[in-house]
């Protein structure tokens, strides 16, 4: 027995002596020998790209220090961006606290046609510039692609393609405040605006506007009614004391929902998005002509009486006699 144990023990000692960790540093991937670049899209990845808002990119460029420095960067979009498209001249890096720190490395960017470019004003061998593309009206319903490129002092260039990104056909309007009895006439028919609110004075000055109105908002102190939205054919009994302007005749279709907190309309941290497809495929066959007792974070799916426009309206805030709404509108 003794011999057996001693034998096992000595084998164990030998085994342990042979095991050890490898402390050499090894590279993951090949070492960098030339100018290289990479790009990511920083704006909301799944939200619809709406005309007038922007698509944000972070474009990273680097060259080994011994080979040279970065000279210039540019991006060409397949559809020229609207006024305000630019390269942020600061390079951002994230510090230990997780905060993005800007460092000025480039000159103000210049845009000619579909190309935005900037030159580096300091000697740097690595930088990440942010590019903001303002979505133009020409891109509505189409796709946009981008080609980023960088030039270094030693003549090397590198290119990175991004896209294509589908641009939504929708319009979006945020945070419109309505006041019962005064600024309470909602129209979905204005160009480039999802919603337009007319006041009582507007209607008095121009009575033909009444035909543009799709919904009338009214607040009633009764706990059963509170904040209500009415189409022309809504039952009178549910809208006591609400005055419809002469000529208001649109039989708008309404479907009430609760808790659909679209990320762009609500600006709350829920990842829900109303997209073109939702409005294209919405079924309004059993829709109503009115919606009462609306609360904050409730919503309305709308189809205008003539079937030309569909919209999703989100209730941001409510208070006595007033409501704040935001909407996305889709032209069929």
């Amino acid at each position: 027995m003794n011999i057996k144990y001693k034998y096992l023990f000595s084998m164990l000692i030998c085994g342990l002596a042979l095991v050890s960790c490898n402390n050499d540093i090894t590279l993951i991937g090949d070492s960098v020998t030339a100018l290289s670049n990479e790009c990511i899209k920083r704006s909301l990845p799944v939200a619809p790209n709406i005309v007038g808002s922007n698509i944000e990119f972070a474009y990273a460029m680097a060259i080994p220090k011994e080979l040279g420095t970065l000279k210039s960067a540019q991006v060409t979009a397949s559809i020229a961006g609207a006024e305000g498209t630019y390269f942020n001249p600061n390079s951002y890096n994230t510090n230990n606290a997780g905060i993005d720190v800007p460092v000025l490395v480039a000159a103000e960017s210049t845009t000619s046609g579909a190309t935005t470019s900037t030159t580096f004003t300091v000697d740097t061998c690595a930088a990440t510039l942010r590019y903001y593309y303002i979505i133009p009206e020409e891109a509505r319903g189409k796709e946009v692609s981008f080609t980023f490129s960088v030039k270094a002092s030693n003549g090397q260039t590198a290119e990175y393609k991004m896209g294509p990104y589908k641009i939504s056909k929708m319009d979006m309007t945020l945070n419109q405040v309505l006041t019962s009895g005064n600024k309470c006439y909602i129209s979905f028919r204005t160009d480039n605006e999802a919603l337009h609110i007319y006041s009582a004075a507007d209607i008095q000055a121009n009575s033909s506007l009444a035909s543009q109105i799709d919904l009338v908002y009214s607040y009633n102190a009764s706990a059963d009614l509170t904040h209500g939205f009415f189409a022309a054919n809504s039952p009178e009994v549910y809208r006591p004391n609400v005055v419809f302007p002469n000529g208001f005749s649109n039989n708008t279709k309404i479907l009430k929902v609760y808790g659909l907190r679209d990320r762009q309309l609500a600006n709350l941290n829920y990842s829900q998005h109303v997209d073109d497809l939702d409005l294209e495929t919405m079924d309004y066959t059993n829709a109503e002509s009115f919606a009462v007792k609306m609360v904050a974070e409730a919503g309305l799916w709308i189809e205008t009486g003539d079937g030309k426009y569909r919209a999703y309206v989100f209730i941001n805030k409510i208070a006595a006699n007033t409501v704040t709404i935001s909407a996305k509108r889709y032209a069929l």
Partner: protein
Amino acid sequence: MNNMKKYSIKIVLMLICFISMGSCGDSPIDEDGLLITVRNDCYVSNFELLDTDLQTVRVGNSYIDTLQQVVIAYVRFGTPINNLWPQFSLCTDGKLTPKITGRVDFTPSKMDVAFTDGDWVAGYGSEQLSTRIIADKSAFPKNALKYTVISGNRKVEKEYTVLVVERPMQ
């Protein structure tokens, strides 16, 4: 070792005997794949109505008279009732027919009632109102929606009439 063999053979044979005796009884399944049991209770215990925003439109519990087989749902003033989702809570093992496969139009079930004092207490429909409505079956809307509850043993069927009454504006 020989002793062990003798005993284990006996034990195995006994086990086989017991297993063959204790088989599962008949488990009848009806045409919907639901189990048919021995229960003969047949009633609706709760009735819910949801609007398109999935919020309830009732005020208080629905009044259910199991003897007269009537369900009265009291709804808030301003409720559109042509696109509601009804939800029946039934007795254990019960089944409902016709099946609810989507939203239902309850306009034929809407009943206009002349209210008197004491009908609405703290915003809820009172016993007085419910019993008065049920007492006069001839005043029920002609095409009020009817749903039949079937008991667990599939032998008892009770047809319930659903009425919707709108509370006056508060």
